[in-house]
């Protein structure tokens, strides 16, 4: 048993203006240097929530604006690449964005800009949390409940809580603290890759189930012969039931 279980919550992101408005490289740099970490997180990391099913993620908000409004594809590419690691601490991310913009401003006219109508308005967001009514006591229960967790909740527990807190909602940390090192490792490495959210959600669920197969096999060997036979019969019955279903049933 763990000291405390893990409660899954979904979140809605309440967006509001962060203050700065950029019309050129210099004001973009100033905005990135001064906005709270939550605003950087919104414009770069939270992209995956806005495009959960994308085959390839669109560039982050800064990169897209520099490409479309400032018409600078080279800088847009560099800013897009800087935001591809979702678990990077926000101050490291801020520093890497500023390095790119300092380099650009040093080489180009910083006042090359865009009409005010196409300005970049910094936004930030507050997460409104709501318990899903899904709780686990042990790490090995997490793969079982994972399919009942929506993608916004997955984003919150895997990425947002890890980067912005609070620590009690950081799923990977909870898994590590409670002996679920393998599950934590799988989640951490896949999340670091920065893939689209639905793919990440599914991939983690599938890798977790596979990771638990050896432990399940070991547990089976400890069960009595009659229990194992009963379980085997149930598996065969389920399989036969699936075969009996018509394609129409399967669709419905």
């Amino acid at each position, binding site marked *: 048993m763990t000291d405390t279980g893990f409660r899954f919550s979904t979140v*809605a992101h*309440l*967006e*509001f203006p962060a203050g700065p408005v950029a019309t050129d490289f210099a004001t973009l740099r100033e905005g990135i240097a001064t906005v709270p970490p939550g605003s950087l997180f919104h414009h770069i990391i939270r992209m995956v929530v806005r*495009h959960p099913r994308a085959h390839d993620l669109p560039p982050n908000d800064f990169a897209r604006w520099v490409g479309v409004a400032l018409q600078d594809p080279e800088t847009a590419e560099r800013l897009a690449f800087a935001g591809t690691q979702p678990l990077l601490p926000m101050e490291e991310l801020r520093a890497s964005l500023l390095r790119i913009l300092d380099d650009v401003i040093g080489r180009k006219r910083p006042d090359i800009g865009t009409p005010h109508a*196409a300005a970049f*308005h910094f936004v930030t967001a507050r997460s409104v949390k709501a*318990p*899903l009514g899904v709780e686990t006591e042990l790490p090995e229960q997490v793969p079982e409940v994972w399919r009942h967790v*929506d993608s916004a909740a997955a984003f919150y527990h895997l990425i947002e809580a890890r980067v912005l807190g609070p620590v009690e909602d950081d799923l990977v940390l909870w898994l590590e603290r409670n002996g679920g090192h393998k599950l934590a490792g799988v989640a951490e490495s896949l999340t670091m890759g920065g893939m689209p959210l639905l793919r990440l959600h599914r991939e983690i669920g599938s890798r977790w189930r596979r990771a638990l197969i050896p432990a399940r096999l070991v547990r089976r060997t400890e069960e009595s012969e009659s229990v194992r036979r009963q379980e085997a019969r149930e598996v065969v019955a389920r399989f036969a039931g699936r075969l009996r279903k018509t394609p129409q049933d399967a669709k419905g």
Partner: protein
Amino acid sequence: MNETVPSVEVDSPLLDSAEPEMNGWLHRYERVVGPDTLRALEAIARRLKGHRIVMVNTTKTGGGVAEILHRLVVILNELGVPTTWEVMEGDDRFFGVTKKIHNALHGHSETLTAEDREIYMERTRREAQRLALDGDLILIHDPQPAGLIALRRAPGQRWVWRCHIDLSSRDPDHWEFLRPSVCQYDASIFSAIEFVPPLPIPTYLVPPSIDPFSAKNRDMEQEEVSSIMERLDLPRRGPWVTQISRFDRIKDPIGVIEAFRMVRARRRARLLLAGGGASDDPEGAQVLAEVREGAAKVKDVTVLELPPGSDVEINALQRASAVVMQKSLREGFALTVSEALWKRRAVVASAVGGIPLQVLHERTGLLSRSIEGAALQTIRLLDNSDLRHELGAEGHAHVRDNFLHTREVRDYLAVFTSLL
């Protein structure tokens, strides 16, 4: 004086004839957005247990706001958040003044006279006595009913002003008339950050949304599309370039005709300008006459005045289009863009208002900033069916994830939760 009375029973939004008999709208949404999204909505709604919401606007028919409210009220009730919808009534004089304010807030120069102010205030006083504003949170939509707060706010109530208009080019006189009322609210909501004026109250950003099951957006077989085109006396042979919008100067129908004139000089195509007027828009007839005059000078242009309730026809017209245009000069959000994207149509639209949130340039559609640009992008799409299909598919996915009612409900629930 003619009173404009809403045609739908004020307190019975749940009696909407389009409501499914079994399982409700949320069940239908499950097929589109998945069960996880609905479970998440239910979880957030549980936090509002025991609270009641009242929505207030000025029309039950016509315009995007009424369309959204018809469905949101039902969905919120299905989620267990008791929500009622009150409609502020007005006469021609009141709606004349509010149209003036609406235009001025969009940036068109209008004079707000002392008489206009008195007409607005007098109607607000009358309606403040009549409307049932007894919820825990009152959500006021747009400027027309904004003045109610000073007369009806009860202790403990939260009032939120939801502005669907782009205020970035607002006329200062009109805004100064409205601002003292707005500043009394606990929070404001805007559709996009570019629309937000400086305010001393918290401001939240909530884009509007569409209903994929409404008559305007539901799936439609090709036979039904063809039969509706035939009934409207429109030739099947296209390709059709279409703008479906209220006949309003800010939608730039004359600019669309001019862009099409350039297209038609280079490619064979037909233009359809279709739309109607909202019940609170007395200017529509005049603009329609100007559009008809302009259209008569260009080959293959059809102007179609649609009566209220032409949702099925709009659905068919969008589906029959090779290219859907939205060449607005100013916009609130332009939900017609999301409607076209939902139908996997290729869209050419101006980069104004909420359009760039829906049309990600070269990914879900094409943006333009001039008449020539609109013509150029339309020709690109007419020439390249692969591009049309790619943009259409991406646009559909983008709307599913960001501009369906379930997302807007989630955002509202977040606002309500943070205030109650």
